[in-house]
């Protein structure tokens, strides 16, 4: 599970006449965990959507190592080593935990590789092993989040994108999830973490970018961003703008 470098240059995303992301540029070194913070509607999810090909980019380029992802279909992006754990988890509710994981392993070469990877993911999430034959729709929020991350890991990605993994979860579960993210990062996975839970995100990230109304308003080491950026004002400002 080696990490790759992620580079985004001049990325813009528009919905009709509304610009959601405006010329955003950032990068993550191999094995680095960077955080993307900002209020609702700041363009965080649109940025992730454009990276993985779910949302068409109006301009800009996305690179993972030497592979250009721009214009690629989502099913090709995941085969190029980038997996997303989406906002709201979006597990396949009518499929079992095992089936969700098997689907996540679609980019892998063969059934043997899928089985081995499922075993690996279940090591990370023992709770999912107990619930392996349960429909994903019957899992608790925390279990669904574990499944969403596990499903993304099944593709054996080099870059893992996480969209609001703490959303709607109890603090104890959030702690567990973030501890796991820290562990994955220590094992060398490059990660881009989009979070509204700024304190938790900055605690495990090495660097952070602050997004305001589709633009990067501040960037730096996690400690710098925590210290220098008036995050409360940032959020309140965005609230007032809506």
């Amino acid at each position: 599970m080696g990490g790759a470098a992620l580079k985004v240059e001049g990325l813009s995303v528009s919905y009709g006449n509304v610009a959601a992301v405006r010329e955003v540029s950032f990068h993550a070194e191999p094995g680095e965990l960077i955080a993307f913070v900002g209020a609702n509607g700041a363009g965080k999810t649109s940025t992730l959507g454009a990276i993985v090909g779910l949302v068409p980019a109006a301009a800009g380029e996305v690179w993972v190592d030497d592979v250009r992802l721009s214009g690629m279909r989502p099913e090709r992006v995941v085969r190029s080593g980038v997996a997303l754990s989406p906002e709201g988890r979006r597990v396949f509710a009518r499929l079992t935990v095992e089936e969700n994981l098997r689907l996540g392993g679609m980019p892998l070469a063969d059934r043997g590789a899928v089985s081995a990877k499922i075993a690996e993911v279940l090591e990370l999430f023992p709770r999912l092993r107990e619930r392996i034959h349960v429909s994903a729709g019957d899992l608790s929020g925390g279990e669904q989040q574990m499944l969403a991350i596990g499903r993304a890991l099944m593709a054996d990605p080099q870059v893992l994108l996480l969209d609001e993994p703490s959303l709607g979860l109890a603090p104890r579960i959030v702690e567990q999830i973030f501890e796991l993210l820290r562990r994955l990062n220590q094992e060398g996975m490059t990660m881009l973490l989009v979070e509204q839970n700024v304190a938790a995100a900055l605690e495990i990230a090495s660097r952070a970018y602050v997004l305001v109304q589709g633009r990067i308003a501040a960037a730096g080491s996690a400690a710098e961003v925590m210290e220098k950026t008036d995050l409360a004002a940032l959020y309140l400002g965005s609230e007032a703008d809506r």
Partner: protein
Amino acid sequence: MTEVVQQVVNALSLGSTYALLALGLAMVLAILGMVNFAHGELLTLGAYAMYGAYKLGLPFGVQVVVALAAAGAAGVAMERVAFRPLRGAGFATLLFASFALSVVIQNSLRAFVSPRQLALPVPSFFDDVIHVGGATIGWLQIITMASTALALIGLSIFLRRTTQGLGMLAAAQDFQIARLVGVPANRVIATAFGISGLLAGLASIFDVARVGTVSPSMGFQPVIAALIGTVIGGVGSLTGAVVGGFIYGALQVAFDAALPTGLASYAPAFSLALVIAILYFRPQGILQQAAEER
């Protein structure tokens, strides 16, 4: 009791055709978010292919294979030629496109084959009956029910036990996320249309065996029944579509049997009234969870 057995067989037999069509319709609806009104034409094309094979003097077994193959291929071609260029278009655009396709196919058959009904005789064993207790059951009914059961079991195994099948189930639940985990969109959509064509082809064989003719508009009434079945079961639920198809078939048979002779011609109206009542209490359909429950 005999009467009940008789009517249950009738309901299962009629419901089989609706269920096969409803499942095909639901598969495309769930994955692409479009109601394919040209779905009935897959049944029609299957039946006309069967007619062509009959005219060539091919034996009935070959006619059946030709009907299935033609309907399956027509499903794939329909997606490739008519709907893929419109991928991402709005619901109304796709709806009108499918209407247009339906009209084009029907009128092409009128222009290039015949505007009239054409006789397509089937082997006489379809008309034979067996007596179980006091009930009379036709071989056509038995074959219809058995083939439908086999098709549904086979499809269920394909969907649950193969990676491609799981990919289709995932795409039917959340197409975007399915693509995100690596499910190839084009292949899944083409497979969905191919399967819906095969199911329509199977339904076309039963339809031809029942009425003994083919006609350009023969797919219209069944596709409406299938659409009603899909709605009863719950839009987006494949199991729901099958259950809904059987329920609608059962309603029609029940009203046909229960209504006094003078009201018999109103059986479809009574069935639809009951469908409206069902949807009043469960607008999301019988097997679909309400949005707030999800």
